[in-house]
């Protein structure tokens, strides 16, 4: 028996060897070296020289690092919470299986499977000062009269139709889609009828918001970072929504039926059944979200000169920038120190999550 056992452990070691080698070389050794370098002054040419905590103290004094730190943390918090809430909300609104899922699934998945390089380039074009977004906004503002007529017409027909039905003594739901579609159609007709008259003349307006090349802040983040936030949400929400949707389908229907009999409102059902039942999915979505967003690099690198460094820098980019500064000397020590700080944040968040995630599951 002991012979077989040692035999098997020999085989086990052989089998695990390829993985073990890569793990040791590319992870354990690399991690140890990063730790060592973070306490040294090393520029790829000299012998690494021990400098104690100087690198860590140095980056804390570096304005760019501080900006990168806040950009990263706030970006992660904002993107993760927005995308989780939006995805959850959308999934609940759709609320289960539907016909034609295959088709919509493609539409919702595509943005998240494409390379971030390609997607980011498309979005940089989208955000150019004379790009699509500003052009679209300009068109909206230029045709504001038609838009107002459209909206006003819609509301008018809506109220009118409900009133007509009510006068005829037929109970009608305000949100009856047939009613709304009819009002929409009628208001389009109205707009079309008025086209060419001075009510709908376009007033040339040019919206020229500087989405990327600016240092202005909007709330806690530079506007450039908000543009990246929007891009991230765009690409991840539909996918996460599908995850939540799968979760929603898995919730036993009798839970809702029992709650309805108890007289619980929709909102209470959502809070006390849907949310706890979805806790495992939420845990995955949030964990993926946090780890992904904390390491955000591709978008920043591809943004390049389209935006000032201060408005787009993240910790991951700061690390790369310190290791390979354009035209300057590599600061391997500083890069390693800042990379370790990034790792510490990531681990802390994952640990915190684990604590909370486990508790949520127990409650559910």
């Amino acid at each position, binding site marked *: 028996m002991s012979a077989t056992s040692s035999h*098997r*452990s020999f*085989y*086990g*070691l052989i*089998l*695990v060897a*390829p*993985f*073990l080698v*890569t*793990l040791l070389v*590319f*992870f*354990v*050794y*690399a*991690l140890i*070296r*990063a730790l060592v*370098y973070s306490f040294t002054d090393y520029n790829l040419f000299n012998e690494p020289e021990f400098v104690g905590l100087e690198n860590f103290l140095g980056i804390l004094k570096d304005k760019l690092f501080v900006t990168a730190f806040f950009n990263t943390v706030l970006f992660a918090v904002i993107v993760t919470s927005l995308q989780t809430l939006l995805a959850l909300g959308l999934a609940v609104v*759709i609320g289960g299986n*539907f016909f034609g899922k295959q088709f*919509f699934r*493609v*539409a*919702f998945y*595509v*943005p998240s*499977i494409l*390379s*971030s*390089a*390609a997607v980011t*380039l*498309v*979005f940089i074009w*989208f955000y*150019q000062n*004379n790009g*699509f977004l500003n052009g679209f906004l300009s068109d909206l503002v230029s045709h504001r009269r038609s838009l107002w007529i459209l909206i006003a017409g819609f509301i008018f027909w809506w109220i009118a139709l409900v009133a007509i039905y009510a006068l005829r003594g037929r109970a009608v739901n305000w949100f*009856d*889609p*047939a009613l709304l579609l009819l009002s929409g159609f009628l208001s389009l007709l109205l707009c079309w009828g008025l086209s060419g008259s001075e009510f709908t003349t376009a007033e040339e307006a040019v919206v020229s918001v500087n989405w990327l090349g600016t240092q202005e802040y909007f709330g806690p983040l530079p506007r450039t970072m908000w543009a990246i936030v929007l891009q991230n949400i*765009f690409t991840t929400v539909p996918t996460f929504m599908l*995850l939540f949707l*799968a979760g929603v389908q*898995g919730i036993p229907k009798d839970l809702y039926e029992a709650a309805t009999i108890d007289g619980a409102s929709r909102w209470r059902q959502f809070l006390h059944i849907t949310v706890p039942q979805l806790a*495992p*999915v939420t845990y*995955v*979505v949030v964990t993926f979200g946090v780890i992904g967003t*904390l390491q955000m*690099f*591709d978008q920043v*690198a591809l943004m*390049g000169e*389209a935006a000032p460094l201060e408005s787009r820098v993240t910790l991951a980019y700061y690390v790369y920038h310190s290791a390979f500064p354009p035209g300057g000397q590599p600061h391997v020590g500083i890069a390693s120190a800042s990379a370790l700080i990034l790792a510490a944040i*990531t681990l802390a968040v*994952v640990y915190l999550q684990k604590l909370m995630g486990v508790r949520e599951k127990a409650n559910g």
Partner: protein
Amino acid sequence: MVNEKVAGALNALGQADTRRFLARMAWLYLFLLVLATVTLGVFCVAFVASLKEDALTNPTELSINQLQPSSWKGAWSLGNAGADDAWFGGLAPGREVVFEVTYANQSLEQLVEPVVKIPKRRSSIAQPSAPEVSAQVAVGSLQLLRENAQVLYDEVSGTKVTPRQGVSRTWRFTLHHRGATPFDQVPMVIEVPKGQVLIESTLPASRIERRGRVASWRNVVPGLLTYVFGNYVRVIDDARSLTTGDSLFMSWTFNSFFIAVFKVVLTLIIACLGGYALARFQFPGSRLIFYTMLFSMMVPGQVLFISNYLVFRDIGLLNTPWAVITAVVASAQVLIMKQFFEGIPREIEEAAIVDGANPFTILTTIFLPLSRPALASVTILGFQGAWNDFFWPLVVLTSPAESYTLPVGLLSLRNVYGIAGDWGMILAGSFLSTIPVLLIFIFFQRYFVENDTSSAVKG
């Protein structure tokens, strides 16, 4: 009587339910459509823009020259006349193409004969020794075809558009290839005094320059495909390697394929062996390996890349695909395989163990055939991940440009052409680079979806 009443009430109830059901459906699909439009809309408008000569002019304009049947007709016939190639165009020696232009101005006296030229292109980006088109292609004399005494046209000056009323004249001329070199492209410029406006031509002008004085064509003998997908052709054709003359974009595509395939194979080997070992074998340090593996999945790549970079530098593999392929820590994949193997009942392998089969035989003959779904998922997601990877290739592939992968290549396209505002080309490159992953997604959709769902439900 009572029965009828009940039946009526039931009927009404049924109708109300149907109504509510239909209403719900209508809302649901409206909502899904809006959502799909929002998610795909950006890509759709970007795709249209990628066809334009200049992706930044009138970005919201969707009716563009490249999508007009009249331009298709012109491109088709010019390509046919120039080189018997209606799809890709060109101008062959001895051939002649006929071109028509219509100019408008406010009065007949101001309407002068335009000057047509084949410009000397002293391009500094293209190959320096390329033969000069202007020396071999001659412009025939202009022939006045017709006159129109009443036309309405727009005069464009800078960003200002002024509607005008005036007269127009149509001229016809030929371009004759007198030399011996077949050309893929023939540029052309036509100059007129300010105020005279080009309102129609066999092929729409690529650019209006000199504040309205010059209309220029990048290529007057395109075929249909070269015209509509001009930027796509340029992405593949324009950027070339100096040493070999190969298209850089094709090199990047090849590298991406090469790297992705080998990386997936390597990952599969490591993941199957490692997963099997961790699932079924007790050996010293197995728990330590397991926890290190879990830990490694949480540490960002930015911590590890400096040391890994130095490792590859020291063994001299920088700027080779092997630096990207071999730097693989397949922790997540090992975990997937381990979990899958653990789900396989032990009874299945026990008979084989008793027969004295060695673990490799058991792995290949029993475990792997049972693990097709997991293997497929690791393969497909691994390919997608390798194809899209940006950070690590950026670190180890710096020169020459032929060694890049597609995402790194896209960055260099952005640096080279972004400075000239040539977004059509950058967008075209982006879209081309996504085709393989898109195809894989369409064919193997369920692996993407199922994997996410199962991992989500498992937590």
